[in-house]
């Protein structure tokens, strides 16, 4: 088992150290994969930490960042996330998980996009303005996931998730002038789906709270946004103020390697008071998105034996304005 662990660690370390040089922002492949919605970060806590979240284990939302983190969830839990995404798009998601140490953790997750309405338009050379506005239409996109994570030792875990992605982009209509009448020609619906697989590892060094992790997401036989995440976090208070458990400060960093663009660098800082009240901030450096700073706060409450976790985050998104996320979780 020890050999296995070191092999994993070594693999992870090799990737972590070598990828920043392998990545190259000139190799951008933006918009060269479909189902882009699965790249959107669901969790308020993770978003507040700049999505530097793969090295956080035990959070109900870990399934969206590193399935291996689910192995450390205790008991049964459910979480819902409401993400007021750019362009007035709502990004809703949730996780239900069940953990039994002997068996591992079983997870069900979903992501659902609410786009509101689109305006259907077509080119019409006979209209004065050159087009016709044919009114509103709606589309549907969602992802469903079944995950499993397991501790190999008390310090090492593995996890994976199989996802079903579905997309219905609405009717494909075509119109033509039949004589002088403008008529609908034919209608079909554009639907697409895909199966994707996520995989992750997590390792706690038990030295100064240093955890390291690696996750691969959206592995599929179709052009999906394949992402590799390499993360590490350290408990700063253990480094600088050993024993100051009531004022915990944790720094995390992720390197994001994506098929869509070169490397992204994400950093998060979480301050915890009595492990109950949290203040967070994060920063992202990517070559493609408008995101940079994020902030957030959260609390863990015990209420009639239920462990309730409420998190809020605020992310700046450049010209696309601000993103607000709210997560609400309960553990039994």
């Amino acid at each position, binding site marked *: 088992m020890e050999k296995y662990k070191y092999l994993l660690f070594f693999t992870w370390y090799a990737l972590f150290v070598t990828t920043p040089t392998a990545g190259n922002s000139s190799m951008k492949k933006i918009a060269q994969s479909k189902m882009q919605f699965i790249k959107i970060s669901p969790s308020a806590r993770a978003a507040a930490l700049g999505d530097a979240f793969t090295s956080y284990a035990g959070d109900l939302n870990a399934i969206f960042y590193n399935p291996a983190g689910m192995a450390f969830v205790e008991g049964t839990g459910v979480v819902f996330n409401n993400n007021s995404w750019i362009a007035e798009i709502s990004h809703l998601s949730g996780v239900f998980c069940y953990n039994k140490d002997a068996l591992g953790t079983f997870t069900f997750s979903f992501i659902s996009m609410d786009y509101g309405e689109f305006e259907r338009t077509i080119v019409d050379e006979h209209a004065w303005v050159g087009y016709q506005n044919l009114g509103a239409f709606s589309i549907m996109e969602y992802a469903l996931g079944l995950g499993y994570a397991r501790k190999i030792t008390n310090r090492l875990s593995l996890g994976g998730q199989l996802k079903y992605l579905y997309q219905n982009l609405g009717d494909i209509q075509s119109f033509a002038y039949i004589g002088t009448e403008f008529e609908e*020609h034919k209608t079909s619906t554009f639907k697409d789906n895909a199966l994707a697989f996520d995989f992750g590892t997590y390792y706690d060094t038990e030295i100064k709270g240093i955890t390291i992790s690696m996750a691969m997401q959206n592995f599929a036989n179709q052009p999906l946004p394949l992402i590799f995440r390499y993360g590490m976090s350290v408990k700063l208070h253990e480094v600088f103020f050993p024993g100051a458990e009531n004022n915990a400060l944790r720094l995390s960093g992720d390197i994001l390697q994506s098929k869509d663009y070169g490397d992204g660098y994400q950093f998060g800082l979480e301050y915890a008071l009595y492990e109950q009240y949290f203040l967070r901030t994060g920063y992202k450096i990517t070559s493609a998105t408008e995101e940079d700073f994020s902030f957030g706060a959260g609390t863990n409450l015990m209420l009639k034996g239920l462990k309730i976790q409420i998190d809020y985050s605020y992310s700046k998104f450049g010209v696309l304005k601000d993103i607000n996320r709210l997560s609400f979780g309960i553990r039994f």
Partner: protein
Amino acid sequence: MKKRYSIISLVIMFAIVTPGFCQIAEVGKLEIGELWHSDEDIPSGGWQVGYQWPGNVVRVKTTSGLNETILANGCARMGGLSCGTTNWKNRVGSVFPYAVYSVSESVIEHTGNLAGGSPIHLKIVMRREPPVVTVNGVKDVPRHPYTDIDPNLPSDAMMSIRWASKIGITFQQDYYAYAAKNGDSYMILDFHALNNGNTDNNENDAPELKDQVLTDVYFNFGIQPHIGFQGSEQNGAVWEGRTDDWVEYYGENYLDFLGSGTPLNPAGDPNADSLRVFMAWDGDNNLDSYTEHDDTGDPNRNTTNWAEPYPTLGTFLSPQYWGMGILHADTDVNDETNDLSQPVTTVWHPALKAESWTADIGYKLFFEGDGSVIGENWQRHRPSPQEMGFTEPNDPVNVCRPNPYVTIGPYEMPFNSEIHWTMLVAVNGLSPEKCEEYGKQWWEAKQGGDGITDMEKNALLATGRDSLMKVFSTATKRYFRNIENGRHPFDTPDAPPAPDLNVTAGPKSVFLSWSDVTEEPDPDTGVKDFAGYRIYRARDLNYGRYEMIWECGGNSGVPVAHSFVDTLVQRGFGYFYYVTSYDNGSQNWETPGESVESGKYLNMMQRNSPVIPFLPPENAVVELNVENLAFKVRRSNSGGSFDTVGVSHHLDIPVDDNTTVAYDIKPVYSSIPIADNHYPIYVELSLVLDDTATANLRYAYNYSGGTNKTTADFIQIVQGDAAKNEWLFDESFNVRNNFPTATRITNIFIGGAGWDYEGFADNIVIENDNGIQFSDNFNDGDFSSNPQWIEINDNPVQIPNLNKIIVVPNPYYDRAVLNNYSAEPNKIMFFNLPGQCTIRIFTVAGDLVKTIHHTNGTSEEPWNQVTESNQLVFTGVYIYHVQSKYGEKTGKFIIIRTSTQEERDLGFFR
């Protein structure tokens, strides 16, 4: 490897240059009339396309995903010259009983080195400087590159190719091409063969094969027919090896036709062959996998295999009849008299039949025309495949790809002697329009509807034979008549020059101007005969259907002008134009009085630079049906005259006794207290009647109808209390009650005037005896929640309504050809933009895909769905963000792309 090529060359026999053989140094193009031709510096007609007809009516194919376009309407290719002689002596003195030269590698082992040649020149000569075409201020790449201008040229353009052969003859092959309709479907090929002993590209150094007398010399011109490149490919008959063309020589007994007469005045048998034409046309491919119908003419049966726009199902893709023949051949080296008994032989040979001949057999078969060397019983003229009883044009052993050869000779050529001969190449057939029309009828019949049968289809296509004969006859008669009348034999009646053309996009309009050619004399007579201009236009594709949209001068009744504004165009679409000039026919020496028009290709706009009309931002947003109609008058600088602001809309509604106008209106006096300097006047709804009188309905605060009722056209004054900030619902009035003589409502205006005022309007309905004629409920919105202010300052500006920004088409679906910009695959438009703004496009995950700076002042901007990294985006939801000085707008749109990379590489959907 070399062996393999030599088998292929054997197959194609004389006239071939494959890319494997040699590097082609230069290619020349003649794209002047409807018959286009490209050729190489050792003129072998080009591997892919030699002759094309009609010139520009093609369908786009891209070979590499780029914009490389192949003109796919070829008719014949790899046409080239060969010659044979006897007892030929090479440089070291070896004697060959038979020697055969061709522009390609020879199949004859012991004279294998005689193929190919050394280029001496390839020139494109034009009679006039070609017109300059400028689109939106940028000069188009010249359509027709040239090397020389020669005002005495008898045609509009000429391609001259001179090269030396290894047999010791230097050849010159000159193509004469014509732009005007009276000669645009044929070319004259003029040949000179000079036995100067030269075999390299230097004619001035010592000849390599000095003082050789060439005996029994024959010259032979052959081609590989390829009727309807696109057609044969379209129907699965891949061009390499499965063509289905027929050939036939008409002219075996031409001498019987002539009798003792001349070509213009024959005295012989009128039933004999009156012309000398070796022709080729498309047959029925019965051996192909798709055999359930007669595919003569290659009707299109598949819409998915072509780049947009698709040919209509059934469209004949191979309608051409191709023909070549002899016009002149010297009698001998000392006698230039036209030997009308030529061609001495006409032979065809199935190019797919892999055979090998020694030089003597090849010489006897192709030059002497002795069928017995291949076990057949014919001399001089090989009967056509059909005459020989073959029924399958793609019979791979006996017929397939029957290359026709026309041979003159034999001549004895002493050193430094020359033989001159002249050929005619012509193509004709059903026009693209007819191909579509009849093809559609045939297809409908195939689907069980009404239409035309196979037999009727074939009969219609066969009219191409008569059309070809007509062109041949016209050109032949013209040739001989010119000689009789002392003209240059290649002359045609000429048109005035095509003018330089300037085309500029405007607001839903295109502005054209062109140079003045009214003073240009006729090249043949030097007399001015200019009559007028015509403008032709095509949409989407420069090879689309052009229609004449305007004419001036001549009998048109329109004075001669040099500019025109085309308003019958649509924003966002690409248009192509050409402008011709035509004469009054007074200098037409062939058909006096018949006008000649300059050709279409001389100043036709180039394929990739259409002119795209647009709408300026003001027009796009300030129309009556803007959402949330509301307006505000606020003038910071008091005093002076007040400003009026609002929107107006042109109408044309008949007024009858029951014509009423109903409306809701809310006049609001807004923020600034009444004071001497801030004095509101009114909010109004007004109609213009019969283009002159104005009917105003004014709602005023502190407005005295009495004192301000200064104009006679007021029909009603309403003392609305603007300070109450209330809607006045269901207001209405009868037009005739107030304005008895009104016959039409020609304009409606809603707005206000003053220094500080706001107004709202809704539910405007104009109704007459015929029901509701006009209604606008302004989207039933609550204006006040999201008003679009039109604000007047000292410099009145109208603020674009960013909420009106719209993406067209949405969703974009690559296969929905009908509702996309068919000629510009992947184009989507952002409409109703402010004149200047920045558009950012993101994936739904927030990745920045593209930034577009919209700066041209129009209300629209295209995007070709290509990212900053030059990649076409995938299917998905995309976000756009528009940033301008008037504010920001974020929106979303959808792109659906189902075409594969392979399809796009092939040019489908791109």
